[in-house]
């Protein structure tokens, strides 16, 4: 068959088809379009019919276009070749396919509707059905025929496509018939719900049993979008996108229907279901139907889908948009409830698990509580932040959806701002905690029971007054100790606004003691009946510097929640998944960091050990490291207690004890981590004898500002006196001072006194022992007691070397010489808070130093400090004596 013939016959076919379409349009479609729909169903039908008409018109115009091009090619016949035909047909068959497929779908439906509407006109609708689809099928057949005749290589693929199209059309028609007969066979009750024009039946368990174990009365229908289970008079339908199939079972979302689970579906069903699910997920049908033979790919097990839960339970009537895995929300998703509550985050096996953000609307106001927290099997657990709609913020740990463990609740609103730092149990303040009432300028440090102050508590106020009382459901009971300004101490009963009531004992700083019954009638002021004892000397330090809270809050019982959280993490084997909820939200960055060697899980503890040996605070400084995180939490707790209002001298011992205990605990935990790390590596932990005093200098910088402030307050009076003494001594020129302090003359470093012409040796100031003085002044530049002691030792060495230079030989200073010289250096160094420094060093230095070199040096310094004070006191008394005489 030559090209010319072929094109001629193609032209003819096209012409006939076009004419045929024109006829259909004129005779059938046009009149039908004019029909006025009378009821709802008719309207719907008309809509569908309009769509059919659109497709038909498109097909028609395409045919016309095709015809026109073909004709053009024919008239310019010289260059006409097969290639042209092919190129012409190539793109067109796609459209044919589309049009015919769609067209027939609608034909079918419309006809079916016609059938229901005009049952008497069965023959007519049948005729319509034939008239509408026959020309197209015939047309395709003719094309196939023609192309086959051409018998050229280039057109074989085109022929194949047309063959596919042919079979596709017939399959679509079969499916439509199959569906049509189903609708006929089902009762009205079912069709009413299930019958949708586009829906096609793919398989019916009546034709092909789904599995051996199925109950006979059950019927399963597989449509192209849903899976329907009919049990007796009821049915359930399931979106195919939420159907998972393997050789063992068909899994539907267990949240959708827990009961529906088929065991061992037949191979054909399994295959068909998988194909149907895949097509439903892709949102388009395969061409040809069911995919290419043997190439059917499994649908993915993880899917993205939106679903509204219908079953009773936590998620009832919530809509979930997100990732699914075998019938359960799994992966990232968003859950929305009708009441406005929603949860965005990680899910696992149908429950919230991992990090999530949850918004819960408040009942009365138009505001939300926002939880940013970790979930564990559907419940909040681990570290979280909750921003409540009423301006309160909670940062801390949760368990089983309630606040549990260590946490901070803060109210930042202007009206009643407060901050609670402490222990939570069952969503309430329970155990040891610190409450700061910012309006009243008060801080309560003590125990709590179900959100009430209960048990022993200390209250410190802005003005520096503090007291210790027993509380019972927020009320003060019994008697307590009230430490007033100017070192007045009151023991007895008093009210919240610090009015004395009932029996009490008031001690004045000058040693007077008033014991009696106090009354405070309105308008009459404070009245008392009692005895005033004036025989006592000045009040003892034990009273004026009384330390609170030591027995009532043993250091082991403070901040238990912080340690517990850490212990839980260690006991769970430091798993990475628990690490996140322990550490908080730094994990995104830490994941990146983990790649770098700094954060390799197992090695890092070894690393940390290495660093600890080198006394580097690296591990503790990094908030990414569990120990660093622990330290950070402890720092926050410490600051919440002792900074600001909490800077009160009566809390010094409490604070000091606490830091030592922190060091002890961190050492223990570090040992625990180390053991774990070594066990993971299959090594036996070495018996490390290093004392926990290694840790104290490492952590001290975190607590130093608050702690030193407490020391300064505690030693305020002594430091004042000492400073006055220093001021007096600073008036002395160097030589006068050396003389005054009884430094032996042959030790005077007169060589250091280089004079200008206008100076006299006896008037020179701040020249002698300058190197030692400058060295001692460095004492305040470091926080580590060990480093401070080293500075002290160096100061001594400077004194000795200066003396050795003066006497021109190695001179071993006995205490008779050393003490006056040290006194000289101390008075010239003018360290403001020397008392605080000395006592801080003594309290926090390694206890093994006791009796040793450093202890001696510190004692020598302390004795200078004391002596300067006594000189000053003595001088003052002498003044008084001279004045009075």
């Amino acid at each position, binding site marked *: 068959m030559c090209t010319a013939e072929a094109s001629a016959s193609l032209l003819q076919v096209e012409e006939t088809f076009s004419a045929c379409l024109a006829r259909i349009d004129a005779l059938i479609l046009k009149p039908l379009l004019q029909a006025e729909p009378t009821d709802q169903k008719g309207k719907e039908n008309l809509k569908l019919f309009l769509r059919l008409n659109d497709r038909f018109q498109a097909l028609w115009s395409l045919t016309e276009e095709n015809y026109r091009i073909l004709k053009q090619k024919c008239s310019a016949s010289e260059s006409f070749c097969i290639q042209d035909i092919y190129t012409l047909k190539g793109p067109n068959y796609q459209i044919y396919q589309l049009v015919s497929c769609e067209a027939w779908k609608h034909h079918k439906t419309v006809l079916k509707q016609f059938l229901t509407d005009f049952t008497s006109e069965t023959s007519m609708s049948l005729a319509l059905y034939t008239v509408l689809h026959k020309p197209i099928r015939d047309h395709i057949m003719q094309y196939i025929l023609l192309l086959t005749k051409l018998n050229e290589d280039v057109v074989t693929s085109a022929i194949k496509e047309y063959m596919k199209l042919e079979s596709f059309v017939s399959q679509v028609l079969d499916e439509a018939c199959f569906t049509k007969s189903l609708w006929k066979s089902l009762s009205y009750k079912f069709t009413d719900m299930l019958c949708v024009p586009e829906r096609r039946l793919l398989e019916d368990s009546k034709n092909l049993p789904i599995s051996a174990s199925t109950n006979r009365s059950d019927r399963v229908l597989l449509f192209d979008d849903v899976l329907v289970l009919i049990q007796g008079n009821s049915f359930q339908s399931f979106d195919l996108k939420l159907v998972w199939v393997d050789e063992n079972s068909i899994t539907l979302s267990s949240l959708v229907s827990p009961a529906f689970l088929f065991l061992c579906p037949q191979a054909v069903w399994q295959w068909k279901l998988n194909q149907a699910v895949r097509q439903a997920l892709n949102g388009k049908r395969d061409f040809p139907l069911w995919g290419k033979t043997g190439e059917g790919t499994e649908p993915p097990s993880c899917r993205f889908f939106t679903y509204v839960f219908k079953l009773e339970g936590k998620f009832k009537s919530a809509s979930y948009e997100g990732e699914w895995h075998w019938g359960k929300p799994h992966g990232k998703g968003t859950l929305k409830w009708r009441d406005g509550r929603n949860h965005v985050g990680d899910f696992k096996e149908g429950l919230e698990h991992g990090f999530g953000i949850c918004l819960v609307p408040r009942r009365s106001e138009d505001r939300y509580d926002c939880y940013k927290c970790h979930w564990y099997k559907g419940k909040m657990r681990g570290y979280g932040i909750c921003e409540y709609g009423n301006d309160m913020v909670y940062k801390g740990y949760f368990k089983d959806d309630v606040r549990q463990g260590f946490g901070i609740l803060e109210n930042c609103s202007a009206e009643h701002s407060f901050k609670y730092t402490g222990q939570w149990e069952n969503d309430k303040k329970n155990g040891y905690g610190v409450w700061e009432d910012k309006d009243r300028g008060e801080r309560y440090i003590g125990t709590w029971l179900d959100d009430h102050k209960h048990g022993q508590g200390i209250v410190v106020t802005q003005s520096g007054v503090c007291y210790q009382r027993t509380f019972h459901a927020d009320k003060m009971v019994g008697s307590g100790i009230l430490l007033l300004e100017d070192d007045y101490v009151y023991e007895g009963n008093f009210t919240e606004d610090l009015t004395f009531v009932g029996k009490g004992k008031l001690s004045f700083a000058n040693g007077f003691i008033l014991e009696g019954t106090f009354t405070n009638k309105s308008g009459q002021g404070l009245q008392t009946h009692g005895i005033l004892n004036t025989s006592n000397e000045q009040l003892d330090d034990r009273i004026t510097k009384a330390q609170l809270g*030591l027995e009532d809050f043993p250091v082991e019982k403070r901040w238990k929640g912080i340690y517990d959280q850490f212990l839980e993490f260690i006991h769970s084997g430091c798993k990475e998944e628990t690490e996140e909820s322990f550490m908080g939200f730094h994990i995104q960055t830490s994941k990146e960091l983990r790649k770098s060697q700094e954060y390799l899980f197992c090695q890092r503890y070894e690393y940390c050990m290495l660093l600890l040996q080198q006394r580097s605070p690296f591990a503790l400084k990094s908030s990414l490291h569990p120990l660093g995180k622990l330290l950070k939490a402890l720092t926050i707790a410490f600051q919440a207690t002792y900074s600001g209002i909490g800077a009160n001298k009566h809390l010094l011992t409490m604070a000091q004890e606490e830091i030592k205990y922190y060091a002890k605990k961190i050492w223990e935990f570090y040992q625990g981590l180390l053991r774990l790390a070594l066990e993971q590596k299959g090594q036996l932990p070495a018996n490390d004898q290093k004392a926990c005093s290694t840790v104290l200098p490492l952590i001290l910088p975190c607590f130093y500002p608050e702690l030193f402030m407490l020391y300064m307050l505690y030693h305020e009076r002594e430091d004042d006196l000492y400073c006055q003494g220093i001021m007096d001594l600073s008036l002395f020129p160097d030589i006068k001072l050396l003389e005054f302090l009884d430094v032996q003359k042959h030790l005077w470093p007169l060589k250091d006194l280089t004079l200008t012409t206008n100076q006299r040796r006896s008037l020179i100031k701040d020249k002698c022992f300058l190197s030692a003085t400058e060295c001692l002044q460095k004492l305040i530049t470091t926080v580590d007691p060990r480093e401070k002691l080293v500075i002290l030792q160096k100061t001594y060495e400077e004194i000795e070397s200066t003396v050795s230079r003066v006497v021109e030989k190695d001179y071993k200073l*006995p205490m*008779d010489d050393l*003490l006056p010289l040290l006194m000289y250096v101390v008075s010239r160094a003018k360290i403001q808070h020397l008392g605080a420094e000395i*006592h801080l060093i003594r309290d926090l230095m390694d*206890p*093994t130093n006791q*009796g040793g*070199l450093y202890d001696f040096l510190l004692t020598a310094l302390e004795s200078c400090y004391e*002596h300067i004070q006594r000189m000053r006191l003595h001088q003052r008394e002498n003044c008084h004596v001279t004045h009075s005489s």
Partner: protein
Amino acid sequence: MMAIRELKVCLLGDTGVGKSSIVCRFVQDHFDHNISPTIGASFMTKTVPCGNELHKFLIWDTAGQERFHSLAPMYYRGSAAAVIVYDITKQDSFHTLKKWVKELKEHGPENIVMAIAGNKCDLSDIREVPMKDAKEYAESIGAIVVETSAKNAVNIEELFQGISRQIPPLDPHENGNNGAIKLGKQTSQTGRRCC
């Protein structure tokens, strides 16, 4: 290895009686395996064997001037022993010694071992304090007494041996409450404040 016990020893006595000379002689005369850090002649250490223990003396010097007397409690607190030195050629220094003994009895650590050293016995021809007086006094207070010469290294060793003998052997159940400090153990004195 023998257990090392650290013993804080405090030196008391008038200025010029040779407190530090005695210690310098004691520390320098004999071998000391490890060279311990010192603060001139003010703080020195020396380890001597005693029975099945090693006694490491941590010797604290004090300033002998009268004006610094009131500071002494800071130095002798926690001492296991006190060496009180007088000059046999100076009666005054023996008076001062008596004052020290009295103070230690009243304010010093419990069970403190007291050793009296009559120094400068090389100058016995200008002696002012008879040996007998010192002995009788020492007996009355239950103290060790020796006449020493730091210059000629007389009785120095014996003085400290005497102290070692007087230190009660370590009771494993008791945690050295007479000023002896065990290595690596924290004595339970936290929260203690001076004065």
